[in-house]
């Protein structure tokens, strides 16, 4: 059996007397797309924020490739190959789409002084162009990101997370607020990115928080259901669909 890429053990976080996450454990295998679902207030975002260094968990450990990464800052996590998108749009509004992609990976190249003397695209131009083509945003590549439609910005946002060849990407509601016709497109792109594992690009694993059940069931290999800060179930989409407890608590009939 292969070793897990990512491992969370008994993670806990409380806000005063309110327990947001109460002992969550799970593993993500290399190349896996792992979904996290649950009703509002079930602790998904707290779990994400603890994993991503935005907040410090009270207890528990987080490991990436067998190394303890608990409590590292977002910057340190990114340098170790953890990418992310945010629930709300987070593009650099006044920079062009292409520059948004370039800045998303340039800090992984060379030293600070080296970057001062480097060409503007840090040698990442062709890579940015390839992602722009893959995401079909070529026609707006030189527009300011803030001038694009919401859906287009969402695509830029996701593309940015993949510029630095992360081994793990955490996607916080990639479909929130997106036109239903684009949801399928995002799903296809994520599947492509997950499959692409050639010599140049390592295969990425994803953790996805999402409320759109069709999207999650179609995309994810395994799904974790969180309810009131605890793990209710972990399993394949068909197992989750068949789980009586989950149906009662969350999915409904």
């Amino acid at each position, binding site marked *: 059996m292969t070793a897990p890429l990512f491992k969370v053990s008994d993670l806990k976080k409380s806000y005063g007397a309110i327990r947001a996450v109460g002992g969550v454990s799970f593993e993500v295998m290399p190349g896996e797309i792992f979904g996290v679902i649950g009703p509002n207030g079930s602790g998904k975002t707290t779990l994400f924020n603890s994993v*991503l260094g935005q907040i410090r968990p009270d207890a528990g450990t987080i490991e990436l490739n067998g190394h303890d990464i608990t409590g590292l*800052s*977002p*910057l340190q996590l*990114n*340098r170790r190959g953890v*990418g*992310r998108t*945010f629930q709300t749009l*987070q*593009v*650099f*509004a*006044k*920079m062009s789409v292409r*520059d948004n992609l*370039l*800045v*998303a*990976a*340039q*800090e*992984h*190249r060379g030293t*600070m002084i080296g*970057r*001062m*003397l*480097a*060409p*503007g695209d*840090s040698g990442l131009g062709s890579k940015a162009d390839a992602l722009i083509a893959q995401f079909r945003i070529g026609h707006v590549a030189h527009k300011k990101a803030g001038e694009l439609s919401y859906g287009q910005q969402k695509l830029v946002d996701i593309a*940015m997370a993949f510029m*630095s060849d992360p081994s793990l990407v955490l996607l916080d509601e990639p479909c929130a607020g997106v036109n239903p016709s684009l949801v399928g497109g995002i799903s296809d792109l994520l599947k492509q990115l997950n499959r692409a594992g050639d010599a140049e690009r390592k295969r990425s694993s994803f953790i996805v928080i999402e409320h759109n059940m069709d999207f999650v069931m179609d995309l994810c290999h395994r799904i974790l259901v969180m309810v009131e800060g605890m793990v209710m179930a972990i399993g394949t989409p068909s197992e989750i669909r068949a789980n009586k407890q989950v149906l009662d608590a969350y999915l409904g009939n």
Partner: protein
Amino acid sequence: MFTKRGLVIGVVCLAALLAVPPFLKNYGVYLFTYWAIFVIANMGLNLTVGYAGQKSLGHAAFFGLGAYSVAILMKAGFSFWLGLPVAAVGCFVIGLAVGFPALRVQTIYLAFATLGFNTLVWLVMRNEQWLTGGTFGINGIGRPALFGVSFDGNLAYYYFVLAFALVLCFLLWRLLASPWGKAFTALRDNPIRAESLGVNVQAYTLLSFAIGAAYAGIAGALLASLVQFVEPVPFTVGASIMMYLMVVLGGPGYFLGPLLGSAVGVLLPEWLRFAQGWYLFVFGIAVILLMLWLPDGLLSLPERIRARRMARSEAAARAVAAQAGG
């Protein structure tokens, strides 16, 4: 980065800067020199405020530190060529230190922290008479020479300052065209996202202050030799606010914004001399109107016109399409 039209405008402006001053009287040459010095200082502030988004209201303190460095060292018998690097490096280091509050507080709170720093520096200039001459200042500051060429004359000194402005302009342009430029802008637009993409937000914040401060230090050094006299008055908090205003008027985050902003800040008061006592009133009204009309500064005007033209042509295209469809 530059369009053909931009290049033509740049060449014409440069030619004017080179060719016009010899035909001016001493006061005109002085104003051109004064403007070029403010361009240097405000290019630095534009990096801190316009590109990196750090609201600093302490820029005049660095301007003053640069001026006093040269004044004190030259009075002590040292060369301008020692004073200048001391001003630049000294301000860079102090700028790094002043950047630290920016790692904790932002926006108006950062503005107040930097304003406090400015007040502190100003008090030292005014009260430490043994070093700074207090309110009487330091006079009789000389002008530099290089390889036997003296820049004593007003016109010669103007070209000397202009050369500095051009070199510093080029260096900043190179810096902003490098990956650093994108990192600064990312820091301004969205620091949380920037950090999640591996941008060392703290390092870039401190550097934006330090480099901006170094530019102000060099400008201050050049000012001391221009006026040949330093006193605390030009380096008050009010002066910092004026510099901030110049950057905002020109267009923060526009590379050439400081050229225009400094022209407005330096020349408009001169043109408004006819208004005498009303000068500040007229200037204030002009600034308010400009900010209402062009909140992103004068250099946002071409972009606005382009956006409006594009919206119009898109609307026309839609109308045609609608007609064809109907």
